[in-house]
């Protein structure tokens, strides 16, 4: 793991789980697989704290364990999974667009809690939805269960590996840690539950001030141990499926930008048909015949078969090669070249970065070198039609930032420099890796800056929170306008200004983080797809 990734992981863990978990997590990422006592000794934290931190990390699928010989259990952290925490808002928003509020809350609960049983999720989501509904209405468990089943059918949530059921004839002491297994077929199998009930509204504080104190009430609920029908079957969000969805979305919008709406719809249909049949890391989808595509087009689209064929031919002939023709049976067999699509998207990202950083003439040179693969200095000047001095300057700037690299081609076996060709070339894979590394660094910087800004104004933030709390409580008990005015004036005008600036800055930094994460997703998908070939 690179230093930039470790730093980013450390910031994310600290923000979401606190310093103790951060210390343990970063130590595991740095040093790899370690047993419990070694972790405690190396980090200098007490054994109890380490145990707590590991429980939290394992619950959230950030750390896995393995039993080695002689009963030693070793823990290993998944650095890439920690980095996914940046993308949680995007996952939740996607499930909102696909399955509306219910789906959004289900995925949110699963992401916040790591893993949960279906009954627990349904109950919690129903309660939360009931809170937001009008008085008197409640959310039925059945509706939430239905959405859950739909999420499982489309593979957006999956089962966690299970503890194997041990037979009674197991000799000897139980193993120090269970080995979790999961059957491929059962991963999306929803248990048959009859969840009947409605969401409960949380009782407002006025009601239970008169009743028993809260401490006693809490004890009651923990003693309420009904047998849970799906005990032991835990569900987690399937991040790979979300990534597949993002990738499909990006391809469709790329086609829409390049060509028109209809072609993007055709591509979307083709992708939807191959959602379940094609594994996510395949270089291209299964071939689909033109007749099948015609039948699966969305109902509102009435384009004739010939028009569809024309569009498909056009897509297949496009130099970007998103769609390829793989045969002629069934009216023409077409595939979507996923790897090529990802490569074009990554290249487009690189071009855009060069353009925004160095200017459009640099971008012209960059695209030229990309297209011609290898060019000498003189040829660059000629083809780009840019004066030599400037072309040289721009090339060196890009070279120093590692967007372009030099390739040496010796003319003589002794590699004499005066008799060697030096060609400029763009190696997309290494440029993508370099850019990805920079993205990690920039997100780490953004998070640090945001934390710094918040810390600077901590006193002011606390004050404004207190004032809001006072106003809220006074409004609840019915206060007059003047009193509210008075309280609001506790925050002076320059302080308000400061708060506004702070809020604007924090929003900008947050939005930038989200934006950089989108770039990270593209580059990571491209690199992964290239590595798997």
């Amino acid at each position, binding site marked *: 793991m690179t230093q930039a990734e470790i730093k980013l992981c450390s910031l994310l863990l600290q*923000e*979401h*789980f*606190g*310093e*103790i*978990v951060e210390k343990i997590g970063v130590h595991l990422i740095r040093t790899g697989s370690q047993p*419990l006592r070694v972790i405690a000794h190396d980090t200098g934290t*007490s054994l*109890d704290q380490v*145990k*707590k*931190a590991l*429980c*939290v990390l*394992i*619950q959230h699928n950030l750390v896995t*364990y393995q*039993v080695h010989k002689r009963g030693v*259990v070793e823990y290993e952290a998944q650095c890439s999974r920690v980095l996914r925490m940046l993308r949680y*808002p995007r996952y*939740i*928003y996607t499930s909102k667009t696909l399955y509306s509020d219910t789906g959004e809350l289900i995925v*949110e609960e699963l992401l*916040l*809690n790591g893993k949960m049983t279906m009954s627990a999720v349904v109950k919690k989501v129903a309660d939360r939805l009931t809170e937001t509904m009008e008085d008197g209405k409640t959310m039925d468990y059945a509706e939430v269960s239905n959405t859950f089943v739909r999420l499982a059918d489309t593979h957006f949530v999956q089962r966690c590996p299970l*503890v194997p059921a041990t037979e009674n004839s197991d000799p000897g002491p*139980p193993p*120090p*840690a*269970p080995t979790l297994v999961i059957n491929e077929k059962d991963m999306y199998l929803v248990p048959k539950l009859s969840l009947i009930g409605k969401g409960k509204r949380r009782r407002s504080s006025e009601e239970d001030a008169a009743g028993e*104190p*809260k*401490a006693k009430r809490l004890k009651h609920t923990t003693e309420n141990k009904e047998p849970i029908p799906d005990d*032991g079957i*835990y569900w987690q969000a399937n991040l790979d499926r979300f990534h597949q969805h993002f990738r499909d979305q990006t391809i469709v919008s790329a086609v829409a930008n390049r060509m028109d709406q209809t072609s993007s719809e055709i591509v979307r249909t083709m992708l939807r048909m191959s959602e379940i049949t094609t594994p996510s890391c395949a270089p291209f989808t299964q071939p689909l015949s033109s007749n099948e595509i015609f039948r699966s087009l969305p109902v509102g689209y009435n384009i004739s078969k010939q028009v569809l064929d024309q569009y498909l031919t056009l897509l297949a002939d496009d130099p970007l090669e998103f769609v390829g023709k793989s045969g002629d049976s069934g009216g023409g067999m077409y595939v979507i070249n996923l790897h090529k699509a990802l490569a074009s998207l990554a290249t487009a990202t690189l071009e855009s970065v060069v353009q*925004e*950083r*160095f*200017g459009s003439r640099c971008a012209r040179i960059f695209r030229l070198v990309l297209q011609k693969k290898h060019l000498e*200095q003189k040829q660059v000047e000629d083809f780009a039609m840019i004066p*030599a001095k400037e072309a040289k300057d721009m*090339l060196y700037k890009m070279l120093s930032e590692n967007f372009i690299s030099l390739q040496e081609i010796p003319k003589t076996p002794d590699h004499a*420099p*005066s*008799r*060697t*060709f*030096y060609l400029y070339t763009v190696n997309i894979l290494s440029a993508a890796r370099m850019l990805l590394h920079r993205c990690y660094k920039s997100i780490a910087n953004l998070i640090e800056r945001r934390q710094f800004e918040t810390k600077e104004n901590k*006193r002011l933030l606390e004050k404004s929170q*207190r004032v809001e*709390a*006072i106003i809220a409580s006074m409004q609840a008990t019915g206060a007059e306008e003047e009193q509210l005015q008075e309280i609001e004036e506790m925050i*002076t005008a320059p302080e308000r200004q400061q708060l506004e600036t702070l809020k604007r800055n924090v929003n*900008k930094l*947050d*939005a930038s*983080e*989200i*934006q950089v994460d989108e770039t990270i997703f593209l580059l990571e998908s491209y690199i992964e797809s290239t590595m798997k070939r």
Partner: protein
Amino acid sequence: MASRGGGRGRGRGQLTFNVEAVGIGKGDALPPPTLQPSPLFPPLEFYPVPLPSGEEGEYVLALKQELRGAMRQLPYFIRPAVPKRDVERYSDKYQMSGPVDNAIDWNPDWRRLPRELKIRVRKLQKEREYIWKNGRREEVTKDCLPPLALLLSPHNLRESQLLFHQEYSLQSKLQQEGKAQAWNDVMERKETDYIMSYFDNGEDFGGDSDDNMDEAIY
């Protein structure tokens, strides 16, 4: 070696490769040497592209900030123990305290975790009062209180001091929040009849800065 010497000998200023091939022509001025590291924030030539705005962007932004806040409130957020205060105070008993004895706030499924991670929670034993009488420990029941002389015997005094210290060390071992949430005045926690601000130490008074104040503080 003979060819060394600080680069002042023959062939000074020659590079190992043909400079023309890289594009620096003969007689061209080389760029000035760099004498310091590049600036921390180099001047931006091109202004960055504005961030995407719109409904989706704002929703995702609000979601992100909400998630950040929500995760801090979940039991998975482990706060480090506040360092022990200089003197133990009576109000410590009624301030917010964290989970007992380093136990976890939530209940993981222990069947899925390695056995070594399970933290045994010492249930607070029912407080029984013992007293030393005739060389033996006997339990004191509410009906018959032992005479004062017996209570003041040296052995019993030591016992009671030990208990006193034990209770306080247990309390201070409990992880405390840095400061009781200021406006959490509702009666809770230790089933007392007093609201939380009754147990205010007075330590937090006068901490805020006094700008914009015209009058003096007495």
